[in-house]
């Protein structure tokens, strides 16, 4: 129980008096959230009393082995799953259904409707949520399409694009909505290693430029260290908070460095050593984890 409180206090350095124009720094509050999902035979607990806070312009990473409920947690923030216990608030408002103020970038390539061109895909959420009229939507879509370097492919259909390009379109589509928070569910996991690194680099560049707030789910320790500025470690099955770690000092250039390696090893130990943890935590076979870069 006290681990919950630690995680909670550690991320909130008291509502800053220096917060711009009196906006509270904390954007997303996840408080004691337990999530369950049903199979025909049983109800499975995915996460247990997880708490954390995401501040404005954070690149907050949820990291854990498969089965720790990190994707389920992200879907709960998106509003697809209702918590069985606890609360999720975005800017003080409790989340109870999906909405266009939280845009999700999925891992699967079929997240782009195949029947729309790249440009129409980026305009789609803007029009579907009635955020903008057609002309403004197209203008904004072109703007973000240029940001991800795909202006030449505006009229192409998604099935003609490579995996990396589809991921770029999905990111442009999410950014064009200018959501309060961008939710990414292992967005680069289906890409090859080189493309993945390139995408991480571009994501960080985009963040530098736009300064969006990001909640990022991954099972790769290296990706977490590179992409995030703060990492929440979740224990395997059911997901409970293991630690919160700062990673703002790392980027793609620190990959081989000694302190980067030390951090990676520390995270690895926190995730998989049962030294201090409760004894009943189940074994996770090492082969199930993808820590290779």
């Amino acid at each position, binding site marked *: 129980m006290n681990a919950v409180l630690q995680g909670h206090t550690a991320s909130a350095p008291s509502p800053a008096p220096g917060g711009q124009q009196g906006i509270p720094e904390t954007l997303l509050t996840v408080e004691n959230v337990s999530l369950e999902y049903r199979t025909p035979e049983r109800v499975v607990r995915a996460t247990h009393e997880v708490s954390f806070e995401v501040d404005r312009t954070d690149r907050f990473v949820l990291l854990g082995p498969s089965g720790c409920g990190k994707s389920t947690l992200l879907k709960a923030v*998106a509003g697809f799953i209702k918590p069985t216990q606890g609360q999720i608030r975005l800017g003080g408002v409790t989340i109870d259904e999906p*909405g266009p103020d939280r845009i*999700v970038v999925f891992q699967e390539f*079929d*997240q782009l409707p*195949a*029947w729309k061109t790249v440009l129409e895909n980026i305009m789609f*959420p803007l029009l579907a949520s009635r955020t903008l009229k057609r002309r403004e939507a197209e203008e904004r879509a072109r703007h973000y399409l240029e940001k991800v370097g795909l202006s030449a492919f505006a009229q192409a*259909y998604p*099935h003609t694009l490579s995996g990396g390009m589809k991921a770029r379109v999905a990111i442009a589509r999410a950014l064009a909505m200018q959501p309060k928070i961008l939710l990414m569910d292992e967005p680069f996991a289906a890409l090859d290693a080189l493309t993945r690194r390139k995408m991480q680099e571009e994501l960080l560049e985009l963040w530098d430029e736009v300064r969006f707030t990001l909640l990022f789910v991954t099972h790769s320790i290296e990706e977490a260290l590179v992409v995030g500025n703060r990492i929440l470690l979740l224990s395997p099955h059911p997901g409970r908070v293991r630690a919160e770690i700062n990673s703002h000092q790392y980027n793609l250039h620190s990959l081989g460095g000694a302190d980067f390696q030390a951090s990676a090893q520390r995270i690895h130990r926190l995730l998989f050593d049962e030294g201090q943890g409760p004894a009943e935590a189940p074994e996770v076979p090492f082969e199930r984890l993808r820590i290779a870069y």
Partner: protein
Amino acid sequence: MSLSPPLREEYEVQLQPFTQAELARDISLAQRIWQQAWVRKGVILLALALVWELAARWQNNDLLLPGFLQTAQAFIDGIATGELLGKVWISLTVLVKGYVIGIVLAFGLTTLAVSTQLGRDLLSTLTAMFNPLPAIALLPLSLLWFGLGENSLIFVLVHSVLWALALNTYAGFLGVSETQRMAGRNYGLRGLRFVWYILIPAALPSILAGLKIGWAFAWRTLIAAELVFGASSGKGGLGWYIFQNRNELYTDKVFAGLAAVILIGLLVENLLFNTFERLTIKRWGMQR
């Protein structure tokens, strides 16, 4: 000595610009013509016509089997006098009415089925009950309820289109991936807008298959129904034309009527459905 591969010399090759052969070659004209589906299908049709004509000449009995040329003559005469075209028009108007009503009902039923559990149960029970029931078997009942006329025909047509299309559409809706559903809900789409913007386009391959099957069922049912009870107030369709000419032993006109049924089927399939497929699901890469 332990087993290990022999160590071989390394080497590098300085590559000159590639000039030995052309990088891309044109396909020959004959091959390009043969690639056109309509050319191949046309050849098949010609071969069939030839076999037909030869069989008719060999059989040598106009009453039983008129040849291709004779049928073509009767067909052209029918078109020229306007008789055949008139019959086709009568049949098609009835057909389209029934087809459209069937489509509307099918979409209503499947939309209900994707939104509520009860709707799902309703759809699966109804399709299980009525899909195996031949539409033509309902015609006597339909005549009793709606009398001799267009309405009884429309009733059996709706029955023949509705279940096949609803079954296909619903299967298509179920096949839409979880990611696309979540993406749609993420943008605030729900209810009818969700069905219209996400489910229908994503399930279009299945829906189109259902529309094709529905069209064929409806066409069949209509001709059969017109054969059973033909005309109301002297206005019969294509089935009636076939039936009447058989009674008067104009076998070539019977064949011309059948040819009209086939031709309309081919036209709808190749022009309407294929064009629609090319502009939608093929262009979107959802179907090869």
